[in-house]
């Protein structure tokens, strides 16, 4: 029997990309885990804290802890929410429950790679060329892949997982680590720079031959897809959970 | 209170705890190769040149081949070469400005970066190193030190009042990123290995 897992589905996935939530749930169940999605969940508190409004995150953080502290592990298909819970859950008093939640929250790729140590996804096949986009939270905060600025030995947890999928090919963009410009509220307060970064990002993948951009973070992809569509860059988007769960397109 | 005293007082008041921030021992890191080959390769990378010296040719002859234009004003600060003007005739920067080529001996060189060290001991008039159009530098291969860490252990840094590490000629890339060798200081820097 697997662990008792609490599934957190960030608001934008709930509202705009339900398929990502479904794929995450089904994938974890397929891997023998006992997964529950507490239906009263709202948000991890990140948007307020990142804007500097720490006290405004308190209600969201408290609710999160109330809903999730009873699980062995909390898994979410989002690097930035994971980073928030793990590193910035500071608006509320640090009780045992809070500490438990902070220590046992995982982004999906980390959880598959480090905790469950899955390497093969025999049910999955994706005969396409994909460009991998690591969100800055996944890359530089959660460290799910090596960072080009440090010159460290190359590794990539999402790439390792995807390599267990039949038929998949990888495109190599020229600036693989460059931020795509989503940045939460940055995407509206600095609309011009944000959209320009997004466009440059999708073009980089497109020119590298990617048919799909795949990422563990839907927020980056929501932004990138918006830029691609507006500028008619012919590229599609898919969350890593969907590929690993056997999506065919 | 003077500005000095009030700055110092504020710093003392605001300082993070010194005990939390110990000073690391000085370190000598990096590649220890101090060979002339490494020096030359680094110098070339910085845009400098090595002087081609045919067997048996004098330094003056080699320099004449390097700078073939007739009538150049060449000033030598070393006994190995004669040049065309006397040092005594160039006592000020204004008088020294027209010099085309200056020949000088470096105190030492750095293999890591192809740098040569000059100070008032070699230059007499510091400005000459920057006003001259071209510079020829004699360097004793025995005076090549491996890298920046070993270089800073040299005594010259404690004695020279002006000490410049020149690494190739002056350069700029301030106009649309185009690298231009020969910006405002020397247009070329040529090193000649010459044991002292």
């Amino acid at each position, binding site marked *: 029997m697997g662990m008792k897992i609490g599934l957190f589905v960030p608001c934008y996935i709930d509202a705009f990309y339900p398929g990502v939530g479904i794929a995450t749930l089904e994938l974890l169940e397929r891997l023998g885990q006992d997964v529950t999605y*507490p239906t009263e969940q709202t948000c991890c508190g990140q948007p307020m804290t990142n*804007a500097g409004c720490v006290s405004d995150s308190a209600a969201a953080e408290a609710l999160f802890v109330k809903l999730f502290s009873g699980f062995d592990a909390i898994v979410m298909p989002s690097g930035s929410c994971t980073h928030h819970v793990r590193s910035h859950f500071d608006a509320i008093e640090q009780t045992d429950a809070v500490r438990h939640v902070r220590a046992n929250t995982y982004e999906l790729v980390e959880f598959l790679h480090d905790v469950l140590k899955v390497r093969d996804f025999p049910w999955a096949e994706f005969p396409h060329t994909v460009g991998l986009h690591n969100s800055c939270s996944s890359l530089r905060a959660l460290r799910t892949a090596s960072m080009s600025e440090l010159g460290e030995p190359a590794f990539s947890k999402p790439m390792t997982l995807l390599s267990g999928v039949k038929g998949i090919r990888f495109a190599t963009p020229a600036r693989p680590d460059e*931020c795509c410009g989503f940045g939460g509220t940055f995407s509206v307060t600095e609309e011009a720079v944000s959209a320009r970064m997004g466009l440059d990002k999708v073009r980089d993948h497109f020119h590298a031959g990617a048919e799909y951009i795949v990422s563990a973070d839907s927020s980056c992809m929501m932004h990138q897809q918006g830029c691609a569509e507006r500028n008619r860059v012919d590229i599609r988007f898919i969350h890593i959970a969907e590929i690993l769960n056997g999506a065919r397109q | 209170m003077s500005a000095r005293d009030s700055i110092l007082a504020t710093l003392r008041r605001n300082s993070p705890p010194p005990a939390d921030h110990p000073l690391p021992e000085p370190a000598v890191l990096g590649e220890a190769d101090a060979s002339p080959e490494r020096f030359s390769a680094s110098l070339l990378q910085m845009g400098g040149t090595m002087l081609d010296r045919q067997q048996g040719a004098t330094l003056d002859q080699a320099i004449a081949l390097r700078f073939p234009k007739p009538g150049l004003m060449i000033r030598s600060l070393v006994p190995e070469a004669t040049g065309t003007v006397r040092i005594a005739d160039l006592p000020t920067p204004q008088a020294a400005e027209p010099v085309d080529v200056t020949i000088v001996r470096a105190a030492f060189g750095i293999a890591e970066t192809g740098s040569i060290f000059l100070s008032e001991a070699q230059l007499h008039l510091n400005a000459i190193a920057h006003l001259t159009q071209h510079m020829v530098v004699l360097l004793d291969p025995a005076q090549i030190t491996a890298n920046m860490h070993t270089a800073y252990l040299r005594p010259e840094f404690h004695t020279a009042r002006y000490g410049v590490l020149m690494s190739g000629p002056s350069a700029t890339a301030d106009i649309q990123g185009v690298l231009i060798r020969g910006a405002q200081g020397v247009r070329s820097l040529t090193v000649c290995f010459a044991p002292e």
Partner: protein
Amino acid sequence: MKEKPVNHAAAAVAFIADKPHLDFHDARLWDMRQKRDAQMHLLPEWQDLRSRASAIKEHALANLADYLEEFERNAKSNGIHVHWAADGADHNRIVGEILEARGAKTLIKSKSMVTEECDLRPYLAARGVTVTETDLGERIQQLDDQLPSHIVVPSVHKLTSDVARIFARSYGTDPNADDPHQLAEAQRLAARPVILHADAGMTGGNFFVAETGTFVVCTNEGNADLSATVPGVHIATIGIERVVPRMADLGVFIRLLSRSALGSPITQYTSHFRGPQDGSEMHVVLVDNGRSARLGMADFWTSLKCIRCGACMNTCPVYRRSGGLSYGAVYSGPIGAIIDPTFNERKYSTLPYASTMNGSCTNVCPVKINIHEQLYKWRQVLVEHHQMPFVKREIMHMAGKLMGQPKLYRAAINGTETALSTLPRFALYNWLNPWGKNRELPAPVKETFHSWYRRNRPTAGRATPETVKTETKA
């Protein structure tokens, strides 16, 4: 204090609209980042160097008063005049007095960010002193009456055609010149006579060494050494944070500086000044201008470790696409965004938000300043100090409340009821509107994950597990 905050976002719109400039700016700075990476890969000890540089700087800052006194003692005994400036006005007055005492009417200057901070040029101009910047990029900016847009390459936002236009106006060269060599030569020829006949010379300083009383200037063009050695008076303006304890420490910093900045192993000139040449004068002006106060800011004092290499700017995707001038400050890019608010909190309150906090800056910083974490911290400080625009603050407040109430939240997501009715709708929509300017919105979906889950896992998830009861202080 009632100054308007810098509108970085609006300036960025204009910058982005000019495609040739934008494309060059982004490509050029990215190329510098790539060259930096190449140098890093050549040195297996790179991370060790960074750690040491950081530790030496933190030590020097934690003992700054002592090291400044040590430097002063040694510099004085070598014949250097040491001056102390509490702020920019102090600095300018000191420089003005040195020049006046010698009847100096012309000053040649190499690049110094501290003199930009102090706004020296207008001060001296008003006193009849002609100041000529001798660094090519800085000279271009002076002639164009703009701040430097980058701390290492001041005119990096300009194309050759811009320089040709500026030089044509000031030097009478061909306005259609398109060869950078030709333009650089024009600068050399124009600068030489000015340098030769200047009454005094001025430089900045990248480092100074307590142990020996030396200061160090790292440059490429040769103009700084000309400015320092040709006139009989050399004034060096240096921020008090630039001290290192020992001569032997310099190796670490010199190895990192130009590699991080331009991707070259060393600057063409690394010049060490330990005393005046015979018959000349040498002055060092140690400038505080807010630094001693910054040392007392627990979350921000490590920004004083900065060696002004510009690597954080080169790697910053926002800086590359908005240009240094859009920050409206002497210091731009990531390092600017964390130090500018210490000069004027209101005016620069927008800059910590001109970032996605992606963290690339922190990774390239040779002295390991946690830049993106300081951006994050600054946002909190600015909110606490009421420097966030009202609408945004209200939205965050409302959103925070909503997120604590599952029923209202669910209603809002489902759109069945407007839970946001307490918030003026126009404010919210105006605020979110920019999304659609250059981007499509996500396509609507038939069903949220939440309702899919309730249909497909009907028995699960209603109650939380019983094991832990949580107290919260929300």
